[in-house]
């Protein structure tokens, strides 16, 4: 739930001396990503090892004779030394084989492919809210530094940091759904709209528009508004805060004096000059925040019965379905790493000095 500090696009070590600069950087980046991913697999592998559930017993039942047990143990590769087991595990994961879910009896990857769009849709709408409201709020707070808009925005942000999302979601449902009836309830669609639109992208907002079903679109939006606002508030808190401190830093720079000395309007000085520079590190902040929303939605998805990745992982967890839990964890971790890489690349695009 808590966000990590932006790792910043720290200059990655070059890969090999003698290669052209961009290729070197690219290879260095790639190596670093691969290493992190390998570490991620090691952690999930070890978690899978320490689980008190015996995978052999789970497969053969606890009344199986010793020979059957031993055969299964060999079949599962558990007689091999740990490092060989790990290599086999990495190979399987790279093939996209996360095993089969005990709960749904499907391959885990297939399950994840089915549930991921729901999470993506929710997180995307939330980050849009967070950026479109959070960035201007942070800018205003920095410009009005130390005065009441700054204080109001600061407290609003701190409350967003402090409120349990699942509780906020519950209270939101109570007020806006149950009492006021302004929004639709839990789930992605009302029951009589379900199945009307063939999933193509899995994002109902997109699919319904493509299929020309505006009613489904509006219904889905009604279901999305509340959970997206709850998560959006969460990311707004973080983004506005980071924007504020980045803007304060930029506004004290000499080039701001130059821009003012040129007689530019305050709006242009703030929004073009200062924000243009603050945007460079801010992109990392936003990317990480987006990643956190993909996972921060775990609890929100439970509260809103949102059939996404977080819901899937938690549900599997409560049913001791370790393959599904670890598969989901790897996917979320991989998305995180991917977003980190993306923000790194964007940083290079946005900052002419890093090109």
């Amino acid at each position, binding site marked *: 739930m808590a966000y990590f500090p932006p790792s910043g696009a720290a200059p990655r070590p070059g890969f090999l001396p003698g290669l052209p600069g961009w290729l070197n950087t690219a290879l260095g980046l790639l190596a670093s990503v691969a290493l992190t991913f390998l570490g991620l697999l090691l952690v999930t592998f070890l978690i899978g090892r320490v689980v008190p559930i015996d995978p052999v017993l789970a497969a053969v039942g606890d009344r199986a004779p010793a020979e059957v047990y031993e055969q299964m143990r060999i079949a599962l590769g558990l007689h091999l030394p740990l490092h060989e087991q790990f290599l086999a595990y990495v190979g399987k994961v790279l093939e996209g084989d996360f095993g089969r879910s005990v709960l749904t009896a499907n391959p885990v990857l297939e399950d994840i492919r089915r549930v991921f769009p729901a999470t993506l849709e929710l997180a995307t709408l939330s980050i849009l809210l967070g950026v479109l409201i959070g960035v201007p709020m942070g800018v205003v707070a920095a410009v009005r530094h130390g005065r009441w808009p700054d204080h109001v925005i600061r407290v609003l942000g701190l409350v967003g940091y402090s409120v349990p999302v699942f509780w906020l979601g519950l209270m939101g449902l109570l007020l806006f759904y149950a009492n006021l009836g302004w929004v639709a309830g839990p789930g992605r669609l009302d029951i009589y709209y379900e199945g009307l639109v063939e999933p193509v992208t899995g994002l109902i907002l997109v699919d319904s528009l493509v299929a020309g079903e505006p009613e489904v679109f509006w219904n889905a939006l009604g279901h999305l508004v509340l959970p997206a606002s709850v998560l959006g508030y969460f990311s707004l808190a973080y983004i506005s805060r980071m924007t504020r401190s980045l803007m304060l830093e930029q506004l004290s720079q000499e080039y701001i004096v130059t821009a003012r*000395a*040129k*007689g*530019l309007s305050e709006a242009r000085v703030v929004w073009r000059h200062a924000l*243009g*520079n603050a945007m*460079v590190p801010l992109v990392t902040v936003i990317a990480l925040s987006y990643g956190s929303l993909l996972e921060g939605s775990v609890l929100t998805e439970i509260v809103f019965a949102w059939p996404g990745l977080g819901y899937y992982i938690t549900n599997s967890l409560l049913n001791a379905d370790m393959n599904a839990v670890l598969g989901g964890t790897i996917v979320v971790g991989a998305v995180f790493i991917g977003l980190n890489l993306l923000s790194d690349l964007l940083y290079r695009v*946005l900052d*002419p*000095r890093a090109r």
Partner: protein
Amino acid sequence: MSAQALLAVEDLRVSFATATGVVEAVRGVSFTMGRERLGIVGESGSGKSMTGRAILGLVPPPGRVDARRLEFDGIDLTAAGSKRRRALRGRRIAMILQDPNYSLNPVITAGRQIAEAYRGLSRAAARERALGMLEAVRVPDPERVLRAYPHELSGGMAQRVMIAMMLAPGPDLLIADEPTSALDVSVRVQVLAILDDLVGRGRMGLILISHDLGLVASFCDRVLVMYDGRIVESCRASELESARHPYTRGLLAARPRIDGPGGELPVLDRDPAWRDAPGVCGAP
């Protein structure tokens, strides 16, 4: 001096409220100038930069500017609203800052930053003018510089961009705050020559803020010496050598000389009495 002064400053004060009390950076500075070259010298912290920023209306918060009189070309700046001040900035009063590494926006190309100075022109026209300005500051390959980001330019080149940007709208008063002190010595002369050319004689007023006595003496018509927020001496640049104030004399003595004795370096004497004593005027 001309009948109507370009700039008249009387009892200018800049103060900052801090946790430990009010700090006065400028304490009652007065001078008038026409379309001439005025040098302001002093050590760092003497208030010379703040004087320049106060004239532009760019003292950062929580700074407070007070003046009995602050008039530019007949416009009362103390009474002018922020909109009026902004309209004057750039168009009529411009400023060149010290270090082009920090004073140019790193994520906007040089061409766009210059073009920004032309308000109300189409993009193409502004670009055309920017190109012309870059030629005026003797940039060798103006098309390239136009597209370049500040970090891709050498210090001297970037400072030329700065000069082009500030002189673009043809201001009446240019405040140059240590325009060459961040540059390599070899580049300084070129940049100064460009500045000398573009400012011309009697075309615009120039306030050259510097800690370099020699530079000010050779470049300016008149010199103000600031110490601890006040003007302690004002004189013609040509008569600087015969300055009377002990602080100015100290500064003069502290200049390194290639032909001088290689003995002990002189140390500046500071007399607390200078803080509040009235300034002296050089030979009338």
